[in-house]
């Protein structure tokens, strides 16, 4: 039984209707998002990132889509030009953090136990153990899960969802909330396309397009002979945009120049 969602529990008296007027007693109209508390902490996290000029990227996918492998290849390609750190989210083990640390990059493991996603509070706690000063890029590798992580703002600047070609090309149609939440879809393990006859990238792109978003989709192969140029280009673009939109940087430089 899943201890997080209560999926095997019997439901009690619940109304699934909207045409009932309030009864006697005190009625309080609220109209507040149920995740307002999470969103407040996410905003606070984003302020931390912005204060230090860090670009924070939240990586999401189903388990085994190749998030850690993509990060390893990214560190090998960019590690000598940018200062990178990683927050790893998994239910158990610090295996992924160990893989990242082996490349000389700081990595903090959050083990969520039975929780199926990271939330803003968990990230906030992690930030106090991970010095942001001097960092350019912070990757948050979310728990492998195409459902729950999509609902929780962590304070990231960009959401990236990986879709490996060993999965179905109809994943965007099956998990619309996740694929609507992302700013980029990375088709991963594309070096396997030659031996897989049931994944059609065109169909995957059409399913993504049907979600009413113009989300870009790029291809990567992160293992053996890494081919991740499109991913690296996208990252460089985001870093450049990030530098251009840091309001405090020009002001500080201006103050120094004018003094």
């Amino acid at each position, binding site marked *: 039984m*899943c*201890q*997080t*969602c*209560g*999926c095997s*529990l*019997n*439901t*009690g*008296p*619940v*109304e*699934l*209707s*909207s045409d*009932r007027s*309030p*009864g006697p*007693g*005190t*009625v*309080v*109209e*609220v*109209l*507040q*998002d*149920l*995740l*307002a*508390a*999470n969103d407040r902490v996410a905003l606070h996290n984003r302020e931390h990132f912005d204060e230090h000029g860090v670009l924070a990227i939240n990586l999401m996918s189903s388990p085994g889509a190749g998030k850690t492998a993509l990060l390893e290849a990214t560190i090998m390609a960019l590690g000598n030009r940018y200062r990178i750190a990683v927050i790893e989210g998994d239910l158990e083990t610090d295996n992924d953090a160990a893989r990242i640390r082996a490349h000389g990059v700081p990595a903090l493991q959050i083990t969520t136990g039975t*929780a*199926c*996603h990271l*939330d803003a509070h968990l990230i906030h706690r992690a930030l106090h153990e991970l010095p942001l000063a001097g960092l350019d890029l912070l990757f948050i590798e979310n728990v492998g*899960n195409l*459902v*729950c992580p*999509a*609902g*929780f703002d962590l304070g990231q600047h960009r959401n990236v969802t990986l879709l490996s070609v060993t999965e179905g090309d109809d994943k*965007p*149609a*099956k998990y*619309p*909330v*996740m694929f*609507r939440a992302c700013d980029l879809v990375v088709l991963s393990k594309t070096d396997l396309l030659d031996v897989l006859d049931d994944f059609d990238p065109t169909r995957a792109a059409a*399913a993504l*397009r*049907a*979600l*009413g*978003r*113009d989300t870009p989709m790029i291809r990567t192969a992160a293992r053996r002979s890494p081919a991740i140029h499109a991913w690296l280009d996208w990252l460089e673009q985001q870093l450049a945009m990030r530098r251009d939109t840091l309001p405090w940087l020009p002001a500080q430089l201006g103050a120094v120049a004018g003094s």
Partner: protein
Amino acid sequence: MHELSVCRALLTQVAGIAMDRGASAVERITIEVGPLSGIEPALLAGAFEVLRSGGCAAQAVLSIESPPVMIRCLSCSAHSRTEPNRLVCGACGGFRTQVVAGDELRLRRVELRVPERLPACAN
């Protein structure tokens, strides 16, 4: 599968409102859960049954409203009612659309039992 987390957040919000108003109990909680919120109403209801016990909402009825998914086309401005994974314009077929309903995940209303205030001291 994150319905328990969301339900905890809901009960925390409701408890705060009940305390602010000096309520003795919560009678009804009305929430909006759209199909694009990523939350399954039946699972949220199951979580509510477990988590409400012992708190001020222990006897409350949870009323869940599920607005259908509505989109507005950014090309032709037509509004269409549609499915969560088919967010293209029903009129012109355009894919540049904006969700105008169906992604809600919010506390709409709380109905409270508030004890009448004791009469002010006559002195």
